[in-house]
């Protein structure tokens, strides 16, 4: 799977979750500061990404990813490990 494809898919999920346009999401966009994420958003977002990429994301990994860019990097790494 190409890096740009992972980025687009992650951004689309985040955009749907927060009701914003995917183009407005930057690597440094923070879930807490910029998107005003509450715990319910975080839980839903993790579940949506897990379902989209068919991976299991441990809670401790999820807590480390606080920006859009961090999530994209994390997913690229996980998919590489998975052999995509």
């Amino acid at each position, binding site marked *: 799977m190409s890096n740009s494809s992972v980025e687009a898919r992650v951004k689309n999920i985040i955009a*749907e979750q927060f009701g914003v346009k995917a183009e407005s999401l930057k690597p440094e966009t923070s879930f807490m500061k910029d998107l005003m994420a509450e715990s*319910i958003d975080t839980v839903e977002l*993790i*579940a949506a990404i*897990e379902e989209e990429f068919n991976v299991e994301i441990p809670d401790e990994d999820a807590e480390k990813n606080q920006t859009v860019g961090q999530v994209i990097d994390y997913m690229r790494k996980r998919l590489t490990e998975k052999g995509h």
Partner: protein
Amino acid sequence: MKLCIFEDGRFSDLYPLTYTRPVFDLRCGRTRLYEKIVRNLPGVGTTFFMRGHLEPVFKDRLDGTVNELDALSGDDVLFVNGRVLALKGTIMPPGDEVAALKGDEIAYIYAKRETVSKLIGSSIDELLGRLKAQLSQLSTSVDLIGHPWDLVRNNPKAIVDDFESIGRRGVFGKMSPKAEIYGDAEKVHVAETAEVHPFVVLDTHSGPIMIDEKTKVLPFSRIEGPCSIGSGSMIVRGNVREEVSIGPMCRIGGEIEASIVHGYSNKYHTGFLGHAYVGEWVNIGALTTNSDLKNDYSTVDVYINGNLYDTGDTKVGSFIGDHTKLGIGCLLNTGTMVGVGCNLLGGEVLPKYIPSFTWFARGRISRGSGFRRTVDAERRVMLRRDVDMAPSHVQMLQNIYDETREERENLIKRGRGRSISEA
């Protein structure tokens, strides 16, 4: 003679309650439908037929064989539809072979050993179809439960029937001298290990009250008959109005009227529940309330299997599947259907249909935390009542998750479209 209790093809008309149980496991009154059937025929061996994915969960809970066609051979058999409301004396083995129908539906069939052996075929549906076609038919007036609200509608007479079946009347448990039976004292059954605390009123003017073993009714509760409270349950400052059945291990407070709580569910706080059926492992938060009467007093429509269905009743509440959690201040509209494993946040009137394994929050339906985390949370919930979630239970939930995927995804997409266009 042998007894066979079977599910027919209408189990889905009783969704969401029958996603997680065979139709005959539904509660109406103190007991479940199959318990009433079996009670009519004491000492008769029973074979149950249910959907295959429920078998691993229920085969250890039921006293009898499950989904074994061969178990029906070698004796005369009374086949009883699991949706029959078998009040005392309604199901008796007739002398001659007969297919008793309600409309076109089988209520029960009595067949001799030779006939069963001749027509047995390869499935229970095939056998029943052949028996129905070949035996003489009669029309019966026995009640068949067709939809969830039929359970609520029939609950009062089922409670009275259960009370008469218990036989023993009076207070056998610990009842405070400061508690009051208001009405006929012969219309109560307080079991040996039950406790009725001070400042409790048991009002039997409209029907009997049964309080089962290890149940506690805490101070300032008022209970009106007909009512049944299952073993190990607790009534916490409850205003329990007429026609309520509460299963085992529930915590009930606030106002509840004409409703059935299947078991192992909590409605601890203030808030109204009326003309509703609540499944197992449900938690209802403080101030959560359901409507059971429309402002124009017209009959209530309910979504079943994707279609809006007129119940023909003006008093219809909500129907809530197992493992669903309702947060504080949820407002459920008249005739609301909530699936299995949902998580609903309050503050507004909820949609009338919420598919299984979804969340509803801030005006939209979502996938929530997904299947794995939902199951993890429910495992913790069950352990609080010392129940392990068996692998067969997880597999049953997975099957429901898969079965409901399409409707869930469709409604999530529709909800997202609405929220984006409104934004």
